[in-house]
């Protein structure tokens, strides 16, 4: 590889993870010859940055492409286009062997703690697998590390030789978290890590994740459809609609000063435990449009309460509506042309 090509594949940036115009389309095949008749645009040109030790909360309705974005970033699904840089190094387009070295630095916590642990392996085998694959440490060091990790996630070390089916959902999720932590990653995608758990267990697992973030300095992409959960853990919140980001700002600004009509609608759906406060819930009409045939112009315009003529024709550009030092990105014609 020559120097020019090398420099093209790296980025100088202070962010740990940098996503540039990432796209993931799934071909829809039909007919006898299995020809591609259309594309499902699950992720449609997303750019995102995550600084070391920070958490970006990704929120959106079911089917808007949140999980696909997470998996495309981790190269579990090969992106259709766009680039992903991890610590300045491009990881898109790498071969399986090249990627292996970078796999240590990025891990995932899955939504379903019942599907994410192999039923035939013991807890110890599950947690030490990343160490085995990457040949980290001697066998006795690996054993010690597994016990350490169990302690970190709040499980007793006596359970080492037990099997996943002997645990509750919350405990299994802790085992999954311990496995993700084993290779000491810099970045973890948490793909709806609490939505399969009981509410009482949810807060325990969320607190655990918050602790990990604080103590270990791991950056998270925290995916959820629950704004309350996102608010609890995130530094920055990105709102996704139909494969695109519509708004991105600090957690505080998103909740206090939402700008995009979609974000406003989402926020109005959070129940407030105050009977005196009159709820002014914005009800969105219709369903999320099919990502196979996204609407022209702004993808949100058929459901938008503030839609204008231009919305159905021209896709809105991404503009910064925040103050100095507090970027607040919005993609909406309402804010187009207005300088903050």
């Amino acid at each position, binding site marked *: 590889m020559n120097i020019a090509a090398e420099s093209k594949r790296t980025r100088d940036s202070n962010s740990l993870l940098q996503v540039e115009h990432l796209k993931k389309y799934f071909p829809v095949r039909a007919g006898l010859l299995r020809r591609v008749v259309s594309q499902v645009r699950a992720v449609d040109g997303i750019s995102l940055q995550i600084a070391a030790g920070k958490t970006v909360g990704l929120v959106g309705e079911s089917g808007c492409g949140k999980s696909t974005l997470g*998996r495309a970033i*981790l190269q*579990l699904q090969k992106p259709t286009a766009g680039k992903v840089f991890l610590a300045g190094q491009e990881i898109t387009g790498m071969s*399986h062997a090249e*990627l*292996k*070295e970078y*796999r*240590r630095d*990025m*891990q*995932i916590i*899955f*939504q*379903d703690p019942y*599907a*994410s*642990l*192999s*039923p*035939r*392996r*013991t*807890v110890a085998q599950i947690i030490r*697998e*990343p160490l085995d*694959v*990457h040949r980290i440490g001697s066998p006795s060091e690996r054993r010690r590390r597994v016990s350490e990790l169990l302690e970190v996630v709040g499980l007793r070390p*006596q*359970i*080492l*030789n*037990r*099997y996943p*089916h*002997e645990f509750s959902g919350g405990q299994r999720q802790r085992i*999954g978290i311990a*496995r993700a932590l084993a*290779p000491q990653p810099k970045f973890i995608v948490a793909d709806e890590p609490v939505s399969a758990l009981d509410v009482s267990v949810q807060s325990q697992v969320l607190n655990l994740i918050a602790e990990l973030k604080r103590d270990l300095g791991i950056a998270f992409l925290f995916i959820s459809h629950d704004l309350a959960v996102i608010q609890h853990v995130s530094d920055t919140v990105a709102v996704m609609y139909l494969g695109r980001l519509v708004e991105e700002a600090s957690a505080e600004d998103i909740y206090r000063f939402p700008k995009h009509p979609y974000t406003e609608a989402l926020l109005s759906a959070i129940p407030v435990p105050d009977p005196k406060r009159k709820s002014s819930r914005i009800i969105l009409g219709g369903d999320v449009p099919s990502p196979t045939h996204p609407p022209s112009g702004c993808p949100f315009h058929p459901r938008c309460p503030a839609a204008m003529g231009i919305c159905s024709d021209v896709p809105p550009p991404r503009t910064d509506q925040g103050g100095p030092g507090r970027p607040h990105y919005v993609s909406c014609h309402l804010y187009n042309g207005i300088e903050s």
Partner: protein
Amino acid sequence: MNGGGENITVGGRSLWQSAGERLRRNKAATFSLWLLILFVVLVVAGPWLAQHDYTQTNLSLGSTAPSLAGGHWFGTDALGRDVLARTLAGGRISLLVGLVATLVSLLIGVFWGAVAGYCGGRVDALMMRFVDLLYAMPFMFFVILLMVVFGRNILLIFAAIGAMNWLDMARIVRGQTISLRHREFILAATLMGAGTLTIIARHVIPNLLGVVVVYVTLTIPQVMLVESFLSYLGLGVQEPLTSTGALVNQGALEMETAPWLLVFPALFLAGTLFCFNFIGDGLRDALDPKSDEDGR
């Protein structure tokens, strides 16, 4: 037959251990298991147990009825050979064919199916079309051709039956693998950077062993039947060596004059087949996680 059952750990109960416990509670399966073990011991220890060699002819004692006093407990055939010794010798060959051919089909089938299912796409299409191609080959024609070209040979029977049986195994394993492939624990292993073969060996195969074990216990009797059928047609083992199928064949010819020639080998064959089927059924129930709930 419950391969992998000795997954002993301190503290945890693996799925195999729970399944073993459920199997022990199934009386028919447990009884079958012990009976089968008895059969295997008898068959292996046959040459020392029987007072007569199975090849030894004694024309003066042709076709004697079973009697304890005469020393021929199961009687003798037309050439005066001891039916007990011959049943045990035949049983040994039948069980051996069943086990070896099943083992061959197990090794090839599991590997083939797991790789095809896991890799998917073009690899899968190519590997499975090859299986379809072999399926289309007429089995009997294939066996007869082998016998004509290479002569009658016990090894050829192993090879021929194994070569046809792995096709079913490959299809079953492939189907299971496809349903496993997108499970999240496989994704997690991919994300760790584990290679394809590691994932297949460590995550895919252990998780489909349950289905495979059940299928194996049902394949062994099937293979034994095929061998009996081949022997019945005269394509099986060569005299003086014998198999259960060959014995039943000869017994059927003299059914009216010397029924003991048919009864004993047939009982042995039917008994073994029953045992394997009961064990297979028991294993299927024991390994099915749903049977946990209905409180069996």
